[in-house]
């Protein structure tokens, strides 16, 4: 089933922060990981990830570094900063409250 694009767009930052709270990743890896964990429900336009990553970095939630992988390809890895870690946690809690509230309304007979 397709997910509402606007809903997905508003959740991209949350997804990025959550995925990076486990380990550092590069852009393509973030997309693959989001797709895998969501059973391919999150298939957003891949280019839109990068402005979101840059915005989070400018806000001080992420830091980045270029590294060369085993296949010789250069990749830009993103990792959470201490501030980003706090933000990821508060966003996760906020999302839990939000979905509980929405579910309470939607599921009421």
């Amino acid at each position: 089933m397709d997910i509402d694009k606007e809903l997905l767009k508003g959740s991209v930052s949350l997804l990025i922060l959550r995925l990076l709270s486990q380990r550092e990743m590069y852009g393509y890896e973030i997309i693959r990981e989001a797709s895998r964990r969501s059973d391919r429900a999150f298939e957003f336009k891949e280019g839109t990830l990068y402005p979101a990553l840059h915005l989070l970095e400018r806000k001080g939630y992420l830091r980045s570094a270029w590294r060369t992988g085993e296949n010789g390809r250069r990749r830009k890895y993103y990792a959470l900063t201490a501030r980003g870690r706090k933000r990821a946690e508060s966003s996760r809690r906020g999302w839990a409250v939000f979905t509980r509230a929405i579910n309470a309304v939607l599921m009421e007979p």
Partner: protein
Amino acid sequence: MEAAEQLIEATLEASGLPGASRRAEVAEELRSHLEELVSDARREGRSADEIERLMTSRFGSPFGIGQDFSRVYRLERVVRRSLAFGLLGLVSLGAVSFFVYAIQCLVSLGLGLPPALVFAPHHWRWENELLSGLTLGYLGLFFIERLFEDRRFVKSVALVGGLFVLASLASQAWWPGHGIGLAVAFFSAVLVRFLEVHCSRGALRFAAILLFFLVLGAIAHQGATIPGARVFWLFVGPIGLAVALSCQILTSMAALFDRQILKGKFA
């Protein structure tokens, strides 16, 4: 990978990212992503055409992505552009003023008039207003036109004109009798830009600007104590010529700045 490069180029085009190094870094990041996508698709056994279609559909709209980047770096872009325009304004004003004052001093010496006449408070103040208003007005018109899609000249005249009206009123309130200098300067800037946009013949354009500044100079120097009509025109003529030539310097500097700096580093 031609399709990948086109996607990257179109994204950067719409992004207005400030700084060549930032643009290069974003390009490299997007290129690295698209290379991963292509190599995964090849592993899946897709054909070149299929890969190209897949890349375009999965990447998204380059214009939309560029606009998202533009929003992320808006503040940095505004600061950089303001600094660049400020610097251009100062350099242009310096070049124009130096040129016009140097010619005036030479003419005064040649006619046996004291060069101090050039820097007499009334003359110096009026001319400074004219040169700074002409320079900043012209640069304002030249660059503000870019903000509009249609009727660019009229809209930029209205916008820059509005700013000049406010500056003239403030100047008039602060130093009574001074607002008119800025108004004349703005009218001169509009004329220079109008001729540049609408008259393709360089010689005709220059002649019209020269004539305008000769008339303006003659009116402005009416009350000056310059002995004799011949000396008057020998004094005013080269000054009008100097201001007209300085307009050429100004338009060349703006075009050079636009080509070498704006398009290369900002656009």
